[in-house]
């Protein structure tokens, strides 16, 4: 039975069926129409500095190797041997001269070309042309200020065009004197939830900050911190027409400063306030984004938190399972002490042991578990917040004001775009 997608997202993204988060046939279509055709964040260039360094990741459920070449360039290909489909590398990362398949010993060079096949003359008698069996490349690869993105779709628009106005927010995350680097590895863990639930949380959900995270705020806050003014009660969202967007915190400047102080410690918080001043001539009022306690998602599944500078990918692992990968991004100009502090606070607050994210994972997995029931699965969910508030409280380009409450504007945009790509890209 063909999937009837149109009826699942209604009212310009303001009413969404819970079937989106459960049905295996929808998930299969997502692998085809979203993940095989979208730009995906693969890794940071600092993770693979030397010739032969590689990092293993996924685009959708496709295993992908990102490899530093002899000439310093970066290439990426499917981690699938062209003979019988064994993984070319089972490591998470490492350094190699070439990739030799453990099954029948075919060897591929760093660029993915098949360079040797054991006993090739006797076995194949000229019928196997090695040039026909290179590793399948990721069709397009781009480096955006140190972040490596890949896309399997040879027809895909450029990353710049794909990002559109969202590039501004990525610039505010990455435009640093001396660049940025990943500090301290990749945390990986499984959450029993559909990938869109966390992606949506980061794109639009300011509404959950106070109710979900009160315990974490209370734990971090110094005694004098006024918990009735927990940052997050007022949030707006910004978004593009292509599903990207994020949450900006509308709390007054004083509360925000105290919030960032409690989360990052005074030294690092002050660094970000200083950084904002240095970025102000170039970015104007938007420079404050670097210390705003907000979140963002680039469609479909790459998210980050400004200030806290944790990057994450919500890897889909089936309709009800997500593998979360997080990186801590540090600014190269920072002292080793500040870098350590950035990493320490990002691990303390986010990640599997993070005092904020523990509770997110609990909510997301329970939201998914309730879709097991046939009746519960047929319900719809409202994304109505902030619909009447109008725009332009923040200086970002497209936004939906929270007006002191929360806005789900970027969520509506996320699901509008989801429907658009799911119905227009086809068979």
């Amino acid at each position, binding site marked *: 039975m063909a999937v009837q997608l149109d009826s699942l997202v209604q009212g310009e993204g303001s009413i969404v069926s819970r079937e989106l988060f459960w049905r295996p046939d929808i998930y299969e279509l997502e692998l085809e129409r979203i993940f095989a055709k979208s730009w995906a964040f693969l890794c940071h260039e600092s993770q693979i500095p030397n010739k032969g360094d590689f990092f293993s990741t996924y685009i959708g459920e496709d295993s992908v190797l990102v490899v530093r070449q002899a000439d310093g360039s970066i290439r990426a290909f499917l981690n699938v041997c062209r003979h019988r489909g064994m993984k070319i590398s089972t490591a998470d*990362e490492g350094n190699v001269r070439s990739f030799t398949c453990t099954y029948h010993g075919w060897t591929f060079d760093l660029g993915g070309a098949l360079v040797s096949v054991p006993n090739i003359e006797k076995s194949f008698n000229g019928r196997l042309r090695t040039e026909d069996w290179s590793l399948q490349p990721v069709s397009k690869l781009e480096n955006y200020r140190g972040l490596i993105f890949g896309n399997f779709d040879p027809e895909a628009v450029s990353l710049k065009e794909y990002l559109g106005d969202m590039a501004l927010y990525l610039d505010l995350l990455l435009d640093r004197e001396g660049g940025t680097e990943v500090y*301290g590895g990749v945390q990986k863990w499984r959450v029993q939830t559909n990938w869109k639930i966390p992606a949506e949380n980061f794109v639009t959900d300011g509404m959950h900050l106070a109710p979900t995270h009160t315990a974490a705020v209370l734990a971090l806050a110094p005694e004098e911190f006024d918990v009735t003014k927990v940052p997050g009660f007022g949030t707006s969202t910004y978004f593009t027409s292509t599903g990207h967007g994020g949450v900006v915190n509308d709390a007054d400047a004083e509360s925000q400063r105290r919030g960032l102080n409690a989360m990052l410690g005074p030294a690092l918080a002050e660094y970000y306030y200083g950084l904002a001043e240095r970025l102000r001539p170039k970015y104007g009022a938007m420079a404050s984004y670097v210390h705003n306690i907000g979140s963002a998602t680039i469609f479909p599944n790459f998210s980050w938190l400004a200030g806290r500078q944790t990057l994450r990918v919500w890897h889909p692992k089936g309709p009800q399972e997500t593998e979360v990968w997080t990186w801590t991004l540090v600014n190269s100009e920072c002292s080793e002490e500040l870098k350590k502090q950035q990493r320490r606070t990002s691990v303390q607050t986010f990640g599997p*042991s993070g005092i904020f994210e*523990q509770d997110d994972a609990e909510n997301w997995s329970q939201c998914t578990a309730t879709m097991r029931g046939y009746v519960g699965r047929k319900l719809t969910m409202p994304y109505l917040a902030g619909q009447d508030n109008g725009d332009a409280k923040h200086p970002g380009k497209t936004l939906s004001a929270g007006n002191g409450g929360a806005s789900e504007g970027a969520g509506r945009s996320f699901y509008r775009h989801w429907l658009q790509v799911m119905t227009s890209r086809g068979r």
Partner: protein
Amino acid sequence: MASTVQKDEALNAIKSGEVADNFRSAVENFYFEEADLLDQFRLRDWLALLTDDVIYRIPIRVNRTDRGRSVTEVSDTDMLLDEDKRGLTQRVVRLETGRAWAEEPRSRTRHLVTNVRVRSVVGGNELTVSSNFIAYRNRLEIEQDFYVGTREDVLRLDAGRFKIARRLVILDQTVLTAKNMTILF
């Protein structure tokens, strides 16, 4: 408390290098008491078992290949958890708020500690000890997680009692299969 050891006895044991068998049972008793506190969520009492300068870390493990050699690396910079006493206390405060949803209602946990080995004596009043553990977490209806690994501790004798001065928890997973880590090991 069973983990109390006579200071002189302990110091003599350390000095004479007899840190193995009879000393191990005191360490084991200490660990069994500690596991019990964790399982009962008596976390303030657990905090009292830590020195003020405690460092508690859980590194990320990575499947690596280096020029053909495969290793599972335990990083000394990449962490799943990296706390001092203040951070650990904040975690306890968080649970005490009654609003830490990942532990409301509380999980049922069981910490099993085995393979205790006293490795060495450091500076006259510290022991390095390794132990293995399984921490089982059962939650709500049928949710269950196993956190399995090894611990490398530095135990310091403080007024005749052990306190944990360093703990390195090495889990046996590269991808955590649990949705979060709400408990400590």
